[in-house]
């Protein structure tokens, strides 16, 4: 069996200065678990300082991608570089922060001690620990609980602590895997602010999420992954160029709704149908078709396509 981590200290793949290298670069990165394809040829580049959203349904290959990039898994094929160095390079990890999806920290340590442990392993100069820890605790709102044992923390507080650990030492690249899964709305807002703060100081952020509104609000670019393949990628503007049309209608059966497939992907929520990518000039034609099928229309609301509309549309197209 090959080694998962090569733990190399190899030179950068090309000779320019470190800053010239993208934060993340992958070429045909693939991963199989037995017969299951977890990731099928991921090729992407995330520039320095960019907030990159990695979207996909559960089991799409998002967490596998992060683990491959961090050297926790060994790729079946393909190559990847972080900050210009091959994945698995020990020294690169000094410049990386990571909040795992499965966040868990030593319950027998206090929050401050957990952060001190990460300062020590990072490793950061001991003289900077106090400032780093105090700043991280303040950023994630745990200053009052600094001396409490992590075992007494709620899940949300543990996730905040994990985020604090990922921020230590001003990393150049931060991986956040579902960073708000255990947080309340206030916590989610705080995380968005933290991500904006990271971007402002030039830190690249790789955000794994299926909370689309969150991604939409903070990401410069996104990639949508499904069944281990990237099915779309680009800036928000590139991805959300279409118009979605929400129609509140009664009196349509499933067979009738199927006849409306010519108007594009439909997000069917009972009486509320959202045509996720429909040009405004086709709205009268749509309404006529619904009425002809016996439907009673109460509301028609064209609006800019949201990331959720586009996401659902992409997944539906992928299944066809």
């Amino acid at each position, binding site marked *: 069996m090959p080694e*998962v*981590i090569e733990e190399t200290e190899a030179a950068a793949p090309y000779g320019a200065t470190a800053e010239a290298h993208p934060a993340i670069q992958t070429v045909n990165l693939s991963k199989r678990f037995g017969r299951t394809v977890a990731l099928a040829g991921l090729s992407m580049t995330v520039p320095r300082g960019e907030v990159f959203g990695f979207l996909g349904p559960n089991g799409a290959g998002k967490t596998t991608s992060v683990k491959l990039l961090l050297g926790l898994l060994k790729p079946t094929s393909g190559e990847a570089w972080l900050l210009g160095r091959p994945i698995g390079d*020990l020294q690169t*990890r000094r410049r990386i922060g990571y909040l795992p999806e*499965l*966040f868990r920290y030593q319950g027998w*340590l206090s929050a401050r001690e957990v952060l001190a*442990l990460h300062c020590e*392993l990072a490793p950061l100069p001991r003289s900077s620990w106090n400032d780093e820890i105090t700043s991280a605790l303040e950023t994630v709102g745990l200053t009052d609980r600094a001396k409490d044992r992590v075992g007494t923390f709620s899940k949300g507080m543990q996730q905040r602590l994990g985020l604090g650990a*990922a921020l230590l030492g001003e990393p150049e690249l931060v991986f956040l895997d579902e960073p708000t899964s255990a947080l309340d709305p206030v916590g989610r807002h705080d995380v968005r602010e933290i991500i904006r703060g990271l971007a402002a100081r030039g830190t690249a952020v790789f955000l794994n999420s299926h909370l689309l509104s969150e991604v939409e609000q903070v990401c410069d670019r996104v990639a949508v992954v499904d069944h281990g393949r990237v099915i779309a990628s680009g800036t928000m503007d590139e991805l959300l160029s279409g118009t979605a049309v929400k129609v509140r209608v009664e009196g349509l059966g499933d067979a009738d709704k199927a006849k409306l497939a010519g108007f594009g992907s439909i997000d069917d929520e009972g009486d509320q149908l959202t045509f996720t990518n429909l040009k405004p000039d086709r709205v009268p034609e749509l309404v006529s078709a619904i009425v002809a099928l016996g439907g009673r229309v109460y509301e028609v609301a064209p609006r800019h396509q949201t990331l959720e509309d586009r996401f659902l549309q992409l997944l539906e197209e992928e299944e066809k």
Partner: protein
Amino acid sequence: MPPVLVIARLTVQETSRRRLILALVILTLIVVGFSAWGFHKITTVTNSAGVVLPPVQVALITSQLLIVVTFMYSGVLALSAAVVAGPLISSEVESGLLLSILARPVRRSEVVIGKWLGLAVLIAMYAAGSAFLELAAVDWATGYVPPHPDQLILYVGAEGLVLLSLGLALSTRLSGITGGVIALVAWLMGWIAGVVGDVGTGLQNQAVENVGVISHLLLPTDGLWRGAIYAMEPDAFLATMRAAGTVARANPFAAVDPPPVSFLAWVVLWFALMLALSIWSFRTREI
């Protein structure tokens, strides 16, 4: 501090804060207290003639009882080592605790060696501490001190380290409970195989004797236990055993000869091999 020492410190810290050390200290003090009272009774009981036992007989009985009490200590150590080592890595992989640590500039070999080192320190401390207290109590109660107390501590401690190494190796791949149970069963089977080997020696049957030899090579716990027994046996007892010939060797609580140097060299190599296996196994594990 290098990562390997940070991980070792963390392992000691965890065991301490989970109160395992406190529980073992309290239990040991209770056992030492009871055994001191029991050993003291040997000096006051009378034989069928109504007189107290002569010092030679007190020493002989004490030496034999001390071997049984030490067997209990080595059992506690083996059980603790297996139970603590079994989940040492697997539980942290399953819970995700290691994810954020392995994303730091920390080699997997450093995690394995650090955890081994942390638990090894605790095992050494327990072996030395409990042996010192027990022997001091026996000395106070009966005036008897085994011939080689330093070797006794080394052999019992090494027995704990063998189970720690086995448990840790299993922990790189199996769940904590599975690894712990396998380590414990292996320890018991190793002891039984050692007894079978002794029976072979007693019967002068080479094939049966080889069962013991092979088991000592696969898992050296019983071989080390025999070393601990030898360190506790007074010269007079050893002379009697030797005079009795091969039949006397068929006894799991007696040792006529010290462990050969070649066996002790194998034990050192066994530790190195087991640690190397653990490192390889963990490095190739996908997390």
